């Protein structure tokens, strides 16, 4: 494994902004600070996106608003010979648990309750930690951000399960499963939280650290 080093300064790591460089956030080519657009890929260049946090919060709030009806309305409508069952996300999981499918119930609760709530918490925490000093190390927060970005897409699994079930289980009089209103809101909520996480500029995490260092003990080492 090769480690990148800026010659002569093996220990101290310098931010591009402090060197008068702005890097394209899409193709990562370096340009002098003040360049407007990347000549390689045409993306607009910003050293730090001043609107980043505002967009994060806007999408975050939209996601949270959509998440409420996603839990209140029914996700699935199951029609069997004699009865029509409408179950919400949590209701469906509880029902599965009653039937003895504890494992599947746990997966559903995890994928559609724990992960979304965890995502809301994590994005809010990251956005706040950029403004205020945080006790959590930058490496931890960077890791948290990567986890949020990676795991965000997986919440769509619920929508796909509903789609598969409601196209597959169409057995005329015997049984039929149809999607409920909550599916729409849940999908929107997932999409908005994905956008929220994407809007976050992870370079901000490391800026706070640079500021802390110059104000505080001068030469804290970051290398592991």
């Amino acid at each position: 494994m090769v480690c990148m080093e800026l010659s002569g300064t093996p220990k101290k790591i310098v931010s591009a902004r402090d060197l008068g460089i702005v890097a394209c956030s899409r193709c990562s080519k370096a340009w002098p600070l003040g360049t407007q657009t990347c000549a390689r890929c045409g993306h607009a260049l910003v050293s730090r996106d001043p609107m980043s946090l505002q967009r994060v919060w806007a999408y975050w709030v939209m996601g949270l608003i959509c998440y409420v009806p996603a839990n209140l309305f029914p996700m699935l409508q199951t029609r069997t010979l004699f009865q029509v069952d409408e179950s919400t996300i949590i209701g469906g999981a509880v029902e599965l648990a009653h039937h003895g499918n504890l494992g599947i119930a746990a997966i559903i609760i995890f994928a559609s309750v724990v992960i979304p709530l965890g995502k809301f918490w994590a994005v809010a925490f990251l956005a706040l930690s950029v403004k205020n000093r945080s006790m959590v190390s930058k490496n931890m927060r960077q890791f948290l951000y990567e986890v949020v970005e990676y795991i965000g897409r997986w919440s769509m699994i619920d929508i796909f399960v509903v789609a598969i079930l409601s196209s597959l289980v169409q057995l005329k009089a015997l049984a039929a499963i149809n999607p409920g209103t909550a599916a729409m809101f849940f999908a929107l909520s997932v999409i908005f939280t994905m956008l929220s996480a994407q809007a976050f500029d992870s370079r901000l995490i490391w800026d706070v650290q640079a500021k802390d260092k110059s104000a505080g003990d001068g030469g804290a080492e970051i290398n592991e």
Partner: protein
Amino acid sequence: MKDSVTTDSQLDLDKVIVCPQCDAVFQLVRPQHGERAKCQRCHKVLIAPRRNAGLHIIAVALSVLFLIIGAAIFPFLTIDAAGNKNAVSILDAALAFSGGPMIILSLATAALIILFPLFRVLLTLYVLVPVVLDRPPARHAIRAFRLSEAMRPWSMAEIFAIGCAVALVKVADLAHVGFGPAFWMFGILVVLVIAQDSFMCKWSVWNSLEHPKRS
């Protein structure tokens, strides 16, 4: 934070690499094939070239292309309960939300599990085939690659595949469920999509698009 290096080298910007994730600056060291260059501060992988990566990606992309088309056409799951049978294709599943505003959800699902993966494969082929053949890049290759990278988080074929597993368990006691040919195609597809993403070194692609002759 000022160092002598920062002032006097006045930075040849082609010999510098910036970590897109934490904005740290490093002098560019091109790793050998199979090695990986990581950011020292946040440990993001910056460059990870592989021998013949272009050829591998093209081969995988072609198989993904055929698998997506096959998986979309052939029946995917069949269900059988007390004489009532139903067979669905992936398109049926994607378009399950019909009626009223739910049609938007149908279109979104179809895009996420079929259109985006398909489009990404086509763009990848368009960008990489000329590069691998040592030809000048195709017209608008840069825009095509940008678009394909922007679609990366939204192409969700592998998530759909796991969704199938969950759905199967849910229906298993209600009815007998069988797998169509498309189900197995989709399984292979998921593995290939993941492999393709791990072969691709973005830095190398951008670099070869910028300096086509030296690739």
